[in-house]
């Protein structure tokens, strides 16, 4: 009547226990890390639109200012998108028969809006306001990335709550001079006013920006 288990059982038992412990730790690790990966946040995912509009060409190449199309960025909560009428100001003159622009022409003809798809999106319960950010020295590039060299719009930032909180806790280093707000190529140079000077200029800091009532209601 030999022993119940073979000698190899020792190693097997240790392996099983270690793998169990490893599995649990891996699970916790995945649950903690995966949501903050770029993959999970769809960062750098290009969203296909009804019309492949190229910012690189229009902003980088032609130098059109953001506010030409996104008209309400300085006065309203949403930045707004251009009505088809704005596109057709030029495209009624040039590329008038391009197959690529057929949806634009059809939209104006049939008075049916173009269904653009959102790229940098926040959940519905977050009430982001463009006007106050632009007024307080936050540039478009801070959240939308280098739009000037994006052939097709892609999501540049993770847009997690942590991303917003990092800036709301310490806005100074992320501010930029008023003239550089809409310049996506801007970066800080030695003669750029110091963060403290910018904070004073924009008079930021009178309010606790990490209150929940700032973004949620």
């Amino acid at each position: 009547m030999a022993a119940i288990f073979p000698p190899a059982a020792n190693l097997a038992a240790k392996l099983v226990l270690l793998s169990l412990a490893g599995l649990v730790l891996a699970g916790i690790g995945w649950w903690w890390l995966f949501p903050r990966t770029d993959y999970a946040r769809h960062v750098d995912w290009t969203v296909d639109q009804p019309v492949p509009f190229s910012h690189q060409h229009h902003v980088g190449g032609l130098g059109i200012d953001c506010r030409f199309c996104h008209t309400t960025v300085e006065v309203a909560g949403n930045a707004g998108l251009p009505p088809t009428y704005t596109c057709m100001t030029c495209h009624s003159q040039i590329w008038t028969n391009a197959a690529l622009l057929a949806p634009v022409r059809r939209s104006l003809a049939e008075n049916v809006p173009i269904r653009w798809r959102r790229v940098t999106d926040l959940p519905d319960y977050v009430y982001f306001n463009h006007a106050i950010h632009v007024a307080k020295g936050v540039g478009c590039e801070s959240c939308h990335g280098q739009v000037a060299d994006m052939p097709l719009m892609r999501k540049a930032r993770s847009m997690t709550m942590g991303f917003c909180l990092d800036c709301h806790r310490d806005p100074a280093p992320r501010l930029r001079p008023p003239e550089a707000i809409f310049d996506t190529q801007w970066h800080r140079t030695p003669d750029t006013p110091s963060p403290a000077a910018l904070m004073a200029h924009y008079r930021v800091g009178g309010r606790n920006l990490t209150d929940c009532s700032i973004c949620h209601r």
Partner: protein
Amino acid sequence: MTGPTRDDRGITRPRLGDPVALSTSNAAMTEHVSAVPFRSQPFARYWLAVAPFGALTAVLLGSILYLFYAGVGIWGIDWPVVWGFALINYVWWIAIASGGTFISALFYLTRSEWRNAINRIAETMTLFGAVCAGIYPILHLGRPWFFYWLFPYPNTMDLYPQFRSPLLWDFFAILTYVISSVLFWYFGLLPDLATMRDRATKRGWQIFYGALALGFRGSSTQWRHYHVTYGVLAAIMAPLVCSVHSIVGLDFAGAATPGWHSTQFPPFFIFGAFLSGFATVLLLVIALRRLLRLQDWMTGRHFDALCKLLLTSSLFVGYAYTMDGFSIFYGGEKAEIVNYTDRLFGYYAPIYWGAVLFNVIVPQLLWIRTIRVNQVLVTLISLGVIVGMWFERYTIVVGSLHRPHLPSAWGLYHGSLWDWLTLMGTVGLFVFGILLAIRIVPAMSMFEMRDTLEQQR
């Protein structure tokens, strides 16, 4: 010392003055106890007993799925009584579970000799009681799929739970309590698993018990560490269960609601845990003693000891009720007095007086020695206590909530069909779990029993 008196069907009736163990041979005890799991039917008509409770467990599963699908609205809770059966059952189950830990940990420290026969049943009861209690904090959430926000894991929102909330203390208390109970139960089981491994004949059982025993073979070094560690673990489990049940009490005492706002809730809940724990252990001991023929080792001595403890804890609870009334009138706050008088004479008064009757008055019968060993009466008293404790939790939760400060917000509450189905479901889960456990795990701690038998000789 009178020998074991068996009546015609070989069932030993508990007698006053019984020794801790009637038959004192090690081998017979080990043979009898370890044989139970190997039999396909631990007792006659075993599967017939398991079937109804299995069905109730299925009912529980069904009502949980429907709850997640339709929302908490299917229960009877409304406004202002936003807590109902979920909290009543949660406190009721955790009290039953805590009672088990008192017996297996507290009375190990006091070296009570009658403890070794019933501590395995008590710990198994703790396990399944904690499971039944543990599901309720998640079920009663409005959005149960976000329960993990209670855990302080570093998330993308940079948000952590709010540590001043009694509910969060509750989350950690239950988490710790379930893990500790499982570890303490498993740790106490190691030597018996080794025995089962060695006595198993079929290869399947050998591998199963062998794997679980993790190579315990009773060597002196193993025993040396085991004995010390078990003692220290028991020494930690006793204050742990007191803290867990105090925190459950703080769930209510931490609020400013009239009726909850009193500092005596933590000890009051621990008295409640004593009472419902001993009552449930008594019920299980009476049942399993008869079904698994363990009369030789669960004798009148155990009945006597447990009934005395039941009596003392019911006196504790009685004291707590009077202190409840006294502190409210002594405090003199108008809303509290209105709430309390309504509890005594209002809509839910019968439930309050039912609680007082079953928890305090009926157990006084146990002063009479002969009743303490009369199995039928002890069963009835224990059942009464269990139902009485449920009534008490009903008055604490619903009785206080339906009379808030402002009369404009007064309202009533009635349990809905789904409340009762979930409650019956958890009772089914509890008994179904215990019936399965005695099928796998020896119902009595053999190695501790050997010490007791040795002292008995």
